[in-house]
């Protein structure tokens, strides 16, 4: 039972254009959402997060949008750069004691072409 879904396994965009990566979740208890970036042979690194009390969080070229009613979030990268080419994982967690509810999606491989 995948609680976090990334339905696009891959995405290819031209350098300078916008990259939009999507993520859906099913658990309405999730209240904190994160995006991680992963290069081959390395561990995932934290990119950006958003709390459920917000609908948008921006950090430089990266913006995450949250639509709670649709249980959907997206990551926008503008402008995309070749160095952004990586696998992006969406993650979600719920506020509770001793929680282990950090759930990850299957990932989307982004390729940014020069």
């Amino acid at each position, binding site marked *: 039972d995948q609680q976090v879904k990334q339905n696009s396994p891959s995405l290819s965009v031209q350098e300078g254009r916008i990259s939009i990566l999507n993520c859906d979740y099913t658990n309405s208890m999730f209240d904190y959402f994160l995006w991680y970036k992963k290069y081959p042979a390395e*561990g995932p690194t934290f990119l950006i997060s958003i709390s459920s009390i917000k609908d948008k969080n921006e950090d430089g070229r990266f913006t995450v949008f949250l639509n709670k009613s649709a249980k959907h979030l997206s990551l926008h990268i503008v402008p995309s750069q070749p160095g952004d080419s990586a696998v992006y994982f969406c993650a979600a967690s719920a506020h509770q004691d001793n929680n*282990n509810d950090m759930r990850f999606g299957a990932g989307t491989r982004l390729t940014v072409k020069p």
Partner: protein
Amino acid sequence: DVKVTQSSRYLVKRTGEKVFLECVQDMDHENMFWYRQDPGLGLRLIYFSYDVKMKEKGDIPEGYSVSREKKERFSLILESASTNQTSMYLCASSLREISGNTIYFGEGSWLTVV
């Protein structure tokens, strides 16, 4: 900077061998995790620990055990390795309260079981 160190980056083991994957974090984090990453399946939680000597099963604990004797160290044990355990294993750590914080990953251990 948080550092999560996985002692073995690449291992090749034979079917039936006992395998130890070691992980150490240097930020005094309460929580530690073991995930495995497989293509199309994302990051799946194997086991989780929120304190010394405490452990909780994740989504796919079968065939694995863990040990947390010290706060900074979390070991994953494959009692009798099988070929379907060939994967990339990722250790992670976080503060006790996951929501509002991030989890930090090690660089990963590539295990091949032949």
